[in-house]
């Protein structure tokens, strides 16, 4: 087949192309995945017993805001990474903002507390639960984002994978904050950050092999 034939064949398609679809689909998929993940948390773990009174308190809001800001930044990067010619890697440092904010808050809390309380502040009651639950619940949004990424054209597949991992951890953090009974800043900054790092590494390592095109 000659290149010219191929061009004739391709230029017969006069159906309009929607370049906004990918952006809309990303946000829609993220919201759907968040709703499904939250539903899954409620079904499997249930809410924390005091959610009705606690959901307006700073720690619960902070957990959700932490997850939401990571997810939002990662989703913008993710969506851009599916479009060749944009250089989303330059925006990657923005992800550090919520992480640094949480870390700063945690250090401030520790500095104001006596040293013998540090261990309780950091480990809380259920640090293992957080470390296992967040990555586990994040698998659902991760798969949703993987399916979406296959509809795009990721030229840097590791970056796309890392952003999908980050975003899925952020979404799972919001969902798990309905259950997580540990409310200290050092807990948030330690275990949620580690869980986020786990998902980012997982996404960057595993997803590229499913994203070849």
């Amino acid at each position, binding site marked *: 087949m000659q*290149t010219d034939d191929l*061009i004739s064949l*391709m230029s017969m*398609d006069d159906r309009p192309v929607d370049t906004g679809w990918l952006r809309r689909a990303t946000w829609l998929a993220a919201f759907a995945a968040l709703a499904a993940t939250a539903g899954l948390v409620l079904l499997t773990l249930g809410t924390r017993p005091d959610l009705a009174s606690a959901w307006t308190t700073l720690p619960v809001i902070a957990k959700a805001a932490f997850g939401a800001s990571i997810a939002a930044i990662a989703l913008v990067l993710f969506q851009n990474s599916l479009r060749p*010619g*944009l250089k989303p890697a330059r925006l990657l440092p923005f992800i550090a903002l919520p992480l640094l904010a949480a870390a700063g808050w945690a250090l401030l809390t520790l500095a104001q507390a006596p040293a013998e309380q540090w261990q309780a502040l950091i480990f809380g009651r259920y640090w293992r639960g957080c470390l296992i639950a967040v990555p586990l619940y994040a698998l659902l949004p991760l798969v949703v984002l993987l399916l979406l990424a296959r509809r795009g054209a990721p030229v840097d597949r590791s970056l796309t994978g890392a952003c999908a991992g980050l975003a899925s951890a952020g979404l799972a953090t919001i969902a798990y904050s309905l259950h997580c009974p540990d409310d200290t800043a050092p807990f948030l900054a330690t275990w949620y950050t580690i869980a986020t790092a786990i998902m980012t590494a997982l996404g960057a390592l595993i997803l590229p092999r499913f994203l*070849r095109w």
Partner: protein
Amino acid sequence: MQIPPCEQAQDVSLQELETQLRPLFLAALAGDAAAYRLFLDAISVRLRGYLSQMLARAGRTEVSEAEDVLQETLLALHLSRHTYDAASPVTAWAHAIARYKLVDHLRRSGRHAGALPLDDEAHRLAGPEESAAADARFDLSRALDALPERTRRLIDQVKLQGASVADAATAAGMTETAAKVAIHRGLRAMAQFLSKRRRQS
């Protein structure tokens, strides 16, 4: 900042290329087939120059090889039109896709991509034009052979016998829209065939 004259000239011609291609591609996205044809003709000349230049640097001088990668790149451009961001240069978009396909091709054919001095500069597209189409090897023809009979016949009629989509559709007993969808699916299947074969080898 001092820019060396040579690079400056290339930047200028890349800008000219962008000014020429962008309106065509935007019209193509809106459904203008003639503009799309002009865009594909212009970009394929540039991409052929870019790809053969880069392949030559990697020690590959066979023209049929560059034509193979070009065809695969064009197919990828076509199937990824929805990933173009209207706020970004269309030359950067096309260059990024060509670069991805080139790196993939080199990796697949056994040469480590690290050996190729791939620079990120899209202005390579503004380099030498190459309008002489070489014969591709058999890659795309083989992909065509792997299509279902009905789709292949449709493509054959349009491509070889120069029939219009409407005529080919009538001959196949389908509507024009259905024929367009079938051709689009055929192109997608050909692209999938190429990337699957790559994974196996």
